[in-house]
């Protein structure tokens, strides 16, 4: 079956469920891309669904970072203590596939025909790098961003939540209104923008947060985007697509892994060229 490509993933949407799948295949099995996991697939699936209908709350299984998922999508996590069932569930399969389904929906997984073969050695090395990065004792020798500091801005980082102030829309939000009492309301920005500049850092020159994976990826790329809603921002590009940049190229921002520290994955929005 021909799949829809959505935020770099394959999507098969039905009335009461949506399947999200990695396009990458190794030895006949679906595997995650270089900066993807079940949480990133689930967020993509939910954002796809939210185009068509609202989701009041959702139940997520172990293995998915519910807090990040909730901040990225704005969907409330279902209270596990509650007597009623969640209206929607996130379901995981053994392979790099996630299903977002209405509770009790009859889910039938389909076989999608897009398959991008990945190199076995690369995949093994990258998985090992993530495993090493994810150990609780691993603390990057980069400029340290504590968990508290990361979480303070996580909502803005993961959902592109900006701020409406007298001068217009600001992102990331500022705390000025706390001091001067000026009006400030949240403003959810569109996740699209155009390239104003870019660079690719060599593996040796990449920040040490990325030192385990940058050599495998051949360096890391960053774009400076003019967001369609006004503010500007700098974003890493997705790890699993070859970068080809040009000025004014339209890009979208998708939810991916950034790096891990102290056993905790920090997620963020990364840029990828909008599919034709």
């Amino acid at each position, binding site marked *: 079956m021909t799949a829809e490509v959505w935020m770099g993933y394959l999507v098969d949407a039905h009335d009461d469920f949506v399947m999200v799948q990695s396009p990458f295949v190794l030895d006949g099995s679906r595997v995650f891309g270089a900066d993807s996991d079940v949480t990133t697939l689930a967020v993509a699936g939910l954002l796809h669904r939210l185009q068509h209908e609202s989701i009041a709350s959702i139940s997520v299984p172990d293995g998915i970072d519910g807090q990040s998922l909730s901040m990225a999508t704005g969907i409330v996590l279902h209270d596990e203590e509650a007597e009623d069932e969640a209206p929607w569930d996130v379901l995981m399969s053994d392979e790099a596939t996630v299903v977002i389904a209405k509770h009790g929906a009859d889910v039938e997984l389909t076989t999608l025909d897009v398959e991008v073969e990945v190199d076995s050695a690369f995949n093994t090395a990258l998985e090992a790098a993530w495993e090493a990065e994810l150990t609780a004792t691993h603390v990057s020798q980069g400029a340290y961003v504590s968990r508290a500091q990361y979480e303070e801005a996580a909502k803005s980082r993961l959902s592109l939540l900006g701020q409406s102030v007298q001068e217009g829309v600001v992102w990331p939000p500022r705390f000025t209104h706390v001091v001067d009492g000026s009006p400030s309301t949240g403003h959810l920005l569109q996740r699209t923008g155009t390239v104003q500049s870019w660079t690719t*850092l060599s593996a040796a020159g990449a920040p040490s947060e990325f030192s385990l994976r940058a050599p495998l990826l051949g360096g890391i790329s960053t774009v400076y985007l003019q967001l369609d809603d006004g503010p500007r921002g700098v974003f890493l590009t997705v790890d699993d697509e070859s970068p080809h940049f040009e000025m004014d190229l339209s890009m979208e921002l998708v939810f991916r892994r950034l790096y891990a520290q102290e056993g905790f994955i920090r997620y963020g929005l990364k840029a990828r060229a909008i599919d034709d």
Partner: protein
Amino acid sequence: MDVAVVGAGQTKYGNHALGLKGMWAEAAGKAFASVDGDFDPSIIDEAFIGSIAFGGSQLGNTAALLTEHSAMDGISVRRVENACASSGFAFRDAWMAIKSGQADVVVAGGIEKMNDLTPERKRYWLGVSGDTEWERLAGLTFPGTYALMARRYFHEFDASHDDLVHVSVKNHLHGSMNPDAHIQKEVSFEKAAGGFMVADPLTLYDCCPTSDGASCVVLAADHVAKKFTDTPVWVRGSGAASDHLALHDRPTITQLKATRDASNKAYAMAGIDARQIDLAEVHDCFTIAEVLATEDLGFSGRGEGGLFARNGEGRLNEGHTTVNASGGLKSKGHPLGATGTGQVVEVFKQLRGQVAPSRQVRDAETALTHNVGGSGATCAVHVFGRDRP
């Protein structure tokens, strides 16, 4: 109240055998020895020492440790931190201390020991002054940040990487004549153009080296300056400004607003404009930074910094203003906290005719120093002259 520089000294920049205490003692000793008259450090009223405290080996109370080892025991001292502009601001603080009437003799200096760390720890400290929360987590180091500026600049104006290569070649030429420079070696255009790519489009030859070093200057109020020398270098203008820490919060990334604001204040105080600057030590941590600085400081028009470099207008005694006669950060080196007052050391010697004839800026009467913190979040600009304001 006018303020003069009456002494200035520095270590050679580079991989220095000495540690913090030894380097500072050497720089302070040279500064005190450069004072023409008798100079007893016990008369110093205040001291301001710029440093990021790279490596964290003495992160707190750095300045007290250093003065203890340089015959300045007991004086009022503090560390000033504004990233790479730390000692530019230390100098401004020293100038303000005298202007306020609270001090007559003040020391300003800077220091950084960068080469005694493992590569991993070095990368940590090289990243602490950028916007860690947004830029750093978007993969940016300072080479990456300036690479974004460079590519955008090429897009907006008539410029290319070749213009940056001209900056690199010029500053290596100037540095090859400076005995205090980290890299005392000329580089050909072809070699600089083909360097290892660090952050596309910036190559190794677009980036300053990682240097150890210390610098120190002695400032004096007008009513005591005569005791120390008949040829003081007068501080004619001081300006400082700040801007958003992160690039994405600025209206443009092809201009440093902090530089423009700081230099406008310094020029206004000095009663001059950019055309009267004979010699400028500008903050070329990356070659694109010098291109932007020549515009922001008014040596060239907006969008003409590339042309300025291409035409060799900043080369020693070839254009109206010699830019980075010392070799600049690119070749003289960039021991972060030491850089700002290190620029003053160069200007002090140039305006007093105390450098080798081969690298002397002819008829130098008025000079400028330009010290930038990070990618432009802070900036201090000073104007100096042989004549009293």
